[in-house]
């Protein structure tokens, strides 16, 4: 179990989520403290994205409960305009599919959307957009429509759109999926920097190679949609049994000098085998 910090951001108790008779998550309980770097690990379909959506109050548990910043997070709470606004200002979500996240006619309006809809005054919105464009180096794209951006640019704009809200907690869903190495590197640096500035970072990923950079603690979701393990990131990554059972690594057959052998295979470290015909 993680150490108990003074400021819990999220507390989950026996959270269950099912949709159209299919179980998405079951018996999930953990706690996230302010300023933490947490990774949610799990194979495709294990419920990582569902868990992030639950944390962002986009969907609600079918059983158990979630508390955010000390108060209960459910449909009734978010119907209260004041609570909803406060919660949305404190939690930002960078979605996996940038195309779904970028729905505005151009980059400038995309970044302004959050601050504007969260009730900031117009001149402050303008200032925030300007600053966000600057820190992410996106000024030259400000009038571009989103469909004329590259994949990496889209991800940066999506991040900018969330950062302009200045949330305390940032949720990332598969942030590095499909990114070019340069943007991936930039993004990881940015996440680390945001964490140093005191932001809580929660990342759902199956890219084990980035875990130690973006998380100090890791939670593993099994294919049965339950918690399979939890602990300091380095320890979780070293636990081959756990990773195998969660289908995050798999056995791999290689031929080494004519000998066939199998071993667990993941991309935690650089994969260094010599393959011969």
């Amino acid at each position, binding site marked *: 179990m993680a150490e108990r910090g003074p400021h819990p951001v999220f507390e989950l108790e026996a959270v269950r989520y099912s949709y159209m008779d299919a179980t998405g998550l079951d018996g999930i309980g953990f706690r996230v403290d302010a300023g933490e770097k947490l990774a949610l690990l799990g194979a495709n379909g294990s419920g990582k994205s569902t868990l992030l959506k639950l944390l962002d109050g986009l969907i609600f548990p079918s059983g158990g409960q979630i508390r955010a910043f000390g108060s209960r997070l459910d449909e009734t709470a978010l119907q209260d305009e004041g609570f909803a606004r406060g919660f949305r200002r404190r939690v930002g979500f960078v979605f996996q599919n940038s195309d779904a996240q970028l729905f505005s006619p151009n980059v400038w309006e995309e970044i302004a959307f959050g601050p*504007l809809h969260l009730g900031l005054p117009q001149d402050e919105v303008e200032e925030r957009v300007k600053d966000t464009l600057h820190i992410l180096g996106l000024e030259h794209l400000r009038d571009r429509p989103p469909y004329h951006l590259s994949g990496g640019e889209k991800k940066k704009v999506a991040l900018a759109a969330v950062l302009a809200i200045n949330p305390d907690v940032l949720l990332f869903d598969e942030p590095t999926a499909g990114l070019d190495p340069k943007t991936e590197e930039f993004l990881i640096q940015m996440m680390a920097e945001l964490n140093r500035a005191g932001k809580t970072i929660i990342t759902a990923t199956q890219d084990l190679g980035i875990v130690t950079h973006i998380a100090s603690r890791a939670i593993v979701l099994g294919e049965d949609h339950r918690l399979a393990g939890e602990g300091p990131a380095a320890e979780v990554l070293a636990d081959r049994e756990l990773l195998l059972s969660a289908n995050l690594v798999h056995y791999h057959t290689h031929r080494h000098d004519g000998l066939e052998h199998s071993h667990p295979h993941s991309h935690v470290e650089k994969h260094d085998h010599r393959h011969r015909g």
Partner: protein
Amino acid sequence: MIETEPTLPRWMIAAAGAKAPATSGRRRRRSAVERTIQGMAHALRTSVFSEQIAARQGLLQRTDPRAKSAGLLALLMAAAIIRTPLLLLTLYALTLAAAASSRVSLRFFIKRVWLFIPVFAGVIVLPSIFNVVKAGDPLFTIWSFGHEVRLGPWSLGTSLAITRQGLAGAAILILRVAVSVSLAVLLTLTTRWSDLLKALRIFYVPRVFVLILSMAYRYIFLLLSLASDMFTARRSRMVGPGSPRDDRHFAASSMGTLLGKSSTLSDEIYAAMVSRGFNGEPMTMRPFRMRTQDLLLLVAALLLAIAAVGGDRLLG
């Protein structure tokens, strides 16, 4: 639990050979699939090009979108009302001048305007200039039959001629269509889509409709590329033009697939919007500042529209 990599079936390992595929001498007809791909590619190119022109520094680009759209709308109405070919021609000349001062290449502008719609109108209206289709005073007689020609219950008259009314009507229709299309093209070429949307607010278009319009436009490009991928994948698997029956089935199943993807997408977008504070009520920034020159241009356009209609009444 040792799983090995899946073994490929034998037929997949055998290569087709290194030689170039043999030619059969039969030409492929352009199929419906190909026409669809080309249409979609054309739509994408058009939008990119429009955005580039909208970013240039010209007369109309610098004008406030609200003044511009109101002015062009007034002229569009004038073009719909007036009935004198000469006045329509004058309006057309004015659209050319406006295009030139907005750094739109005239060759491109004329091609864009005329290539489809007015030429099409010309083809449609062509039969109506003949007296056998529409009665009128003969202007040129092409062929005298010498006696009354009957086609079942219909009489075709005694000659085939081009009529005065038919010719004038055709000229008016084509000119009217050309002026209308020119005005519309001017507006959309010189205005960024996002600005055009904001301008809609002055016509009391509700905010949520503007939001829907802007999102629809943005996602057309995503769905177009999804659909175009489906069609391209199909084309690459097809040897011949494919039977029309198969093509219809394919079109229907792609529609279904696309509808499914659209539905998933709309759920995701909704989540992304809510996450950033959307509660069903769209907000907008103060859009633009109207300057004196914008107002002057608007007044000029309105006066021009009124003058055109008034002049038309005097002449007609």
